[in-house]
């Protein structure tokens, strides 16, 4: 019998089914290659997650293929997911045989040839170097720092994101070679479902979708519920604006989620599951479909998985886009083909969920934590984070920070460290004003909260929520009244309309905020009325929180109330002085005409829709402030830069 060649080694048979501790030499070599520790021919990695694609990675991928073809270079090109360093995109990495993997940032169609030319001549292009990866098997490049030492990378604890951006998301073998599916094979061979649930309960893993409910407890309730069929649903319908954690996890390492789901299904006695994913996540869907197909073919999904008698299937349900479907009962209605309207609870989905059967709904990040808990043990999982909130949390950091992208930090990390240690501060040396945590229905954290540890307990103590992991940072140029208006406007549109407090209440809140961000429409509309509106805002907010049916309504007033708490003077300034000092609220802007610069061309006067500009030909014009609505047309049309913002 001849020894199998590298490409025909079946990792499922050789690694997962044979439970031997000793790995033969040829298999070990094969694994090292799959881990890209060594390469036989040049290997080019293109960061091709959605964020990379928006930055232009598809064109770069084509350019690289053309280059290799034209220069007759035999090299392998693979796509990876997002490594989290969105600020440096588009990224490409090149690994030459025997050398360490070299990472280039801000690659473009124009400079890619230059970069490839230099690297294939065994030098490098210093202008675009991000760094090199540590690798004990290869010779490092001289004079280049390590990617692992970049503050953005170094200060993170990457567990779920460990392989995102590093491995090929289309390759099941690469995942298995990096230890993937070993938790599942070990579990099916040696553990009972009750033992798995017990481990997850002991680990203290809490739902990462926002609720923070103990995952193990949820599984326990579902497992003990009566029902001939049970369901598992993975909620990947991430619809917070400014949140892209789940998408990046799926794009970067879809097999991790599949393994987590299989473990969850085993623990709860479930054979059928759905992944509810946004249909606009085209790339994530594509990679997930490929991963599911590969797992089916390899016998990791379907009937009698790894000869253990355990059956489990995954079906994709692409969502048609509704923010409220992040709520688990609304999500269930949506899969059933109904309007995504929440159901009153109890009964909880773990008792009566999808098609009235016991159903566990878990978020992508929650499920992605499970393989680690089972594989490395409870103590390893609890080694970071706090006592009540163990483990890590992935955040999508965006807004006005110097470096934005995807980060993973231990629970209990402070906002200050995230912004200043990882991200390097605020852009253009401006000052920090607030950070919105928990998406549109979250709260803002301000300067006094910078040292607050980010974990479930500490956040609830300051009346904030963890949410799913969106973290948007605002700088001094942000108007908090406008931002609150933006959030409440979003939530008003997202409200499903079932219960009145949320449907009507968010509408009224928006009206009040619109009212104070524009000039009074008529003379009867006094400052006092506007002030009363704000007083009502607080009262209304409380009523909405206390009486709404689901989480959306209960948290909807949060962004406004928290802005009001910390930035009351800004609201008052809008009301009494009719002024927006950040100059964001367009209708409160006032303009003036510089008489020195004005030539009296009459253009602004003609164009002004409110007839608020007066003046004679060839004499400086004036703006009548009481008529001006702040539309800014005069500023745009003036050819002499005579119109200025006051």
């Amino acid at each position, binding site marked *: 019998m001849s020894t199998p060649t590298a490409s025909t080694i079946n990792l499922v048979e050789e690694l997962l089914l044979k439970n031997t501790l000793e790995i033969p030499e040829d298999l070990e070599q094969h694994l090292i290659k799959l881990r890209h520790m060594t390469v036989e021919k040049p290997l080019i990695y293109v960061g091709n997650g959605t964020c990379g694609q928006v*930055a232009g990675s598809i064109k770069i991928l084509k350019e690289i293929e053309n280059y290799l073809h034209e220069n007759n270079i035999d090299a392998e090109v693979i796509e990876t997911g997002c490594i989290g360093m969105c600020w440096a995109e588009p990224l490409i990495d090149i690994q030459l045989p025997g050398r360490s993997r070299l990472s280039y940032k801000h690659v473009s169609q124009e400079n890619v040839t230059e970069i490839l030319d230099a690297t294939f001549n065994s030098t490098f292009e210093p202008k675009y170097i991000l760094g090199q990866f540590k690798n004990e098997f290869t010779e490092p490049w001289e004079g280049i720092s390590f990617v692992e030492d970049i503050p953005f990378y170094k200060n993170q604890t990457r567990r779920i994101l460990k392989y995102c951006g590093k491995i090929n998301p289309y390759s099941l073998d690469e995942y298995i070679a990096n230890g993937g599916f070993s938790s599942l094979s070990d579990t099916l061979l040696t553990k009972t479902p009750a033992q798995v649930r017990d481990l997850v309960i002991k680990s203290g893993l809490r739902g990462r979708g926002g609720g923070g409910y103990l995952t193990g407890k949820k599984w326990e309730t579902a497992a003990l519920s009566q029902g001939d069929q049970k369901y598992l649903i993975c909620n990947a319908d991430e619809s917070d604006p400014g949140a892209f954690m789940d998408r990046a996890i799926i794009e970067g390492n879809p097999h991790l989620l599949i393994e987590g789901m299989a473990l969850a299904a085993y623990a709860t006695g479930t054979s059928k599951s759905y992944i509810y994913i946004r249909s606009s996540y085209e790339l994530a869907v594509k990679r997930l479909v490929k991963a599911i197909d590969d797992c089916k073919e390899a016998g990791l999904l379907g009937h009698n998985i790894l000869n253990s008698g355990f059956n489990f299937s995954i079906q994709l349900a692409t969502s048609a886009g509704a923010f409220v479907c992040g709520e688990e009962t609304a999500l269930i209605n949506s899969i059933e083909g109904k309007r995504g309207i929440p159901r009153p609870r109890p009964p909880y989905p773990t008792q009566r969920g999808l098609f009235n059967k016991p159903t566990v709904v878990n978020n992508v990040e929650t499920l992605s934590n499970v393989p680690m808990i089972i594989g490395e043990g409870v103590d390893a999982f609890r080694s970071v984070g706090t006592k009540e909130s163990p483990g890590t949390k992935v955040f999508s950091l965006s807004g006005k920070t110097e470096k934005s992208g995807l980060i993973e930090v231990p629970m209990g990390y402070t906002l200050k460290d995230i912004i200043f240690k990882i991200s390097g501060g605020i852009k253009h040396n401006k000052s920090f004003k607030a950070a919105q945590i928990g998406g*549109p229905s979250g709260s803002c954290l301000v300067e006094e909260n910078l040292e607050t540890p980010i974990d479930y307990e500490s956040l609830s103590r300051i009346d904030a929520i963890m949410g799913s992991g969106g973290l948007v940072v605002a700088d001094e140029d942000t108007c908090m009244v406008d931002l609150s208006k*933006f959030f409440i406007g979003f939530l008003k549109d997202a409200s499903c309309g079932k219960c009145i407090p949320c449907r009507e209440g968010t509408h009224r809140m928006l009206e009040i905020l619109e009212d104070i961000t524009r000039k009074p429409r008529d003379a009867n509309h006094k400052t006092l009325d506007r002030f009363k509106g704000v007083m009502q805002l607080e009262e209304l907010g409380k009523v909405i929180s206390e009486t709404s049916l689901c989480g959306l309504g209960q948290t909807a007033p949060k962004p406004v109330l928290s802005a009001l708490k910390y930035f009351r003077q800004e609201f008052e300034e809008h009301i009494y002085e009719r002024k927006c000092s950040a100059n964001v609220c367009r209708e409160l802007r006032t303009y003036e005409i510089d008489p020195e610069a004005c030539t009296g061309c009459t253009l602004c006067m003609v164009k002004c829709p409110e007839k608020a500009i007066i003046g004679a030909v060839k004499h400086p014009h004036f703006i009548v402030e009481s008529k001006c609505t702040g539309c800014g047309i005069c500023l745009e049309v003036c050819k002499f830069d005579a119109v200025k913002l006051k």
Partner: protein
Amino acid sequence: MENKLQEIITSNSNSKREDLIPILQRIQEEFNYLPQEAIYAVSKALEMPASKVYSIASFYNLFRFQAIGKYHIRVCNGTACHLSKSSDLLREIKKELKIEPGHATSNRLFSLETVPCMGACHLSPIVRINNTYHTQVESEEIKRVIAEIRKEEEL
């Protein structure tokens, strides 16, 4: 259109309620919007009132009831883009095209839509025209692109 509709419906349906949204998604993939005929055809196939089908379809943001233009413009209105003044950008585009989001110009050259987040917040604000992304974009650039398209289409 009739035949295509029937084909989609029969290939997807076991006449079950939970097939409704996938069928509507397939129809929208095919036609880029949900024509009125489609609502009736689906309602017949799934034995549901047309009003119910419409009520479900109109609940979800994804479904459109108007055909899109040859150039479909999506303006990201996520939080990061909002902080980068995407609403000013949207206002300029609306003014330029003289349409509101969710609508198409009368010559069906352009249509406009706002989307919640494209997931590349570091490049905000983002505007996507068909499959081309315009990142960290200013209204002048978009106006220029629109003018170029108009010129090209006239030729």
